[in-house]
């Protein structure tokens, strides 16, 4: 229950796993979707 009295149920999503990188390619950044900020 949340503060405003509504139920706090989380919507269920089917599990997803996808490749985001490889052994020799830091593809997280290469794909342009890095969760990190690039340091100039």
């Amino acid at each position: 229950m949340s503060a405003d009295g509504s139920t706090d149920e989380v919507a269920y999503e089917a599990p997803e796993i996808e490749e985001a990188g490889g052994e020799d390619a830091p593809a997280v950044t290469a794909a342009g979707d890095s969760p990190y900020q690039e340091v100039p």
Partner: protein
Amino acid sequence: MREHAPSRPVGAKLELLYACNLRCTFCYTDSPRHTVAGTASLADGDWRRLTEELLELDIVEAVVTGGEPLMRADLALELVQRLAEEGVGVTLNTNGWFLDDEIADRLAEVPGLSVHVSIDGPSPRVHDAGRGVPGSWHRAVLAVDRLLQRGIGHQVVSVVTPEVLPLLEQHLALMSRLGVDSMRITPVAEIGAAARLRGQHVPRKKLLDAIERHRRSHGERMRISAQYGNVGLVPVRDRVAPAALLIRPNGSVLTDSQQPFSYGNAVSDGVAECWERIRRGWRDPRISEWAGSIQRSGKVRDAAVVPYLSDELDLSSTEDGGDGPVKHLDDPLPRRAEAKDGPVDPPELIRSLALARAYRREPARIGGGERSTYVRRLSDGRIVRVNQTALEILEALDDASCADAVERLAERYPGVSRERLADDALDTAARLLDRGFVRPAGAPEGHRRLAVATTPDLPDAIPGVDSAE
């Protein structure tokens, strides 16, 4: 086509014994007959010496088989370990009956091992009927589960009879749910005991269609190879140079299981000498004549000498063979017990085994959040992006089973059915396992999954050749 046999054999298949505890009507080695006859096999010391000879010849692959090799479990495990410790890629063929926890623990110590277990269909009724012994389906499924618990390389081999064919798709789905990595689908080869049967033909298209439908509905996580037309290849075998050899339980050396010609005895002549004879003699006119007769009739079982149904024809012998090798068409066979499904519900058993299997997380760093959580495996830097549900399953699978993950998900998502949560947890665990982000809790430290399982005796390496319908 390979035109020259290499100077040394690349692989070897070792048939440790004739006997088997099952009674398969289609047994290509005709083991049930030998079991009744009590045909003698080489002694342990002979097999140890032959294994050392093969290692000296620098083989790179070996198949340890039978009969049922785990009826000589200590010997089989010793040879498998010896070959593997020298870097040979070893496959152990078994019906799984004797593969208990103790044997599974020993197999888990063998580097690079692949264990091939025969399971023909999705229920005891169809599998046990073909195998002739009630309980064989159940024991084989438990054996595969033990391999999966320990991360041992494996393949499920299914012999597809006309009775199995309508159930093939269901069988593939069940094996996929169990967590099987790899399957080989093979119709009945008309050699050995199967040469006594009629009406075992399975249309190739129907078999391939069933596999394709499975792939469309379940994806390609489980590798499936259809080995179609082994026996159809016999006519071309006299034109393809051998690269491996096969040692029968009595020491006879053959090139493979598709030809009934012996090049001597490994014990009395030595493996190296037998291989030299193979190199010199694989184009023997008697082989061409035999292959030609099969090509003309289209039936291996009608040939004068049928692999495994007849005694081998020794090409190295100078003695007159008289009427030729004995064809054991009417020899006594063991009685088969009637098969029925019994109290086990196959899909329920498979599901409960898969849910109970425990996993351990590989060391990883987890960052980001919400819909974009990134998991970086420390061992090699591989990164996957997961959503919240997949992350919860990954976090749950730490020395825990999918059943534990389902409990955790059920608390967070009370409105979602347990059946759906279980399906999702099982699928996700399989994908995390494939990608190396979890490993079976029973797998040794530093466990690596086998990339490919191969069998030197199989003619898969011959491109563009297949059986005629």
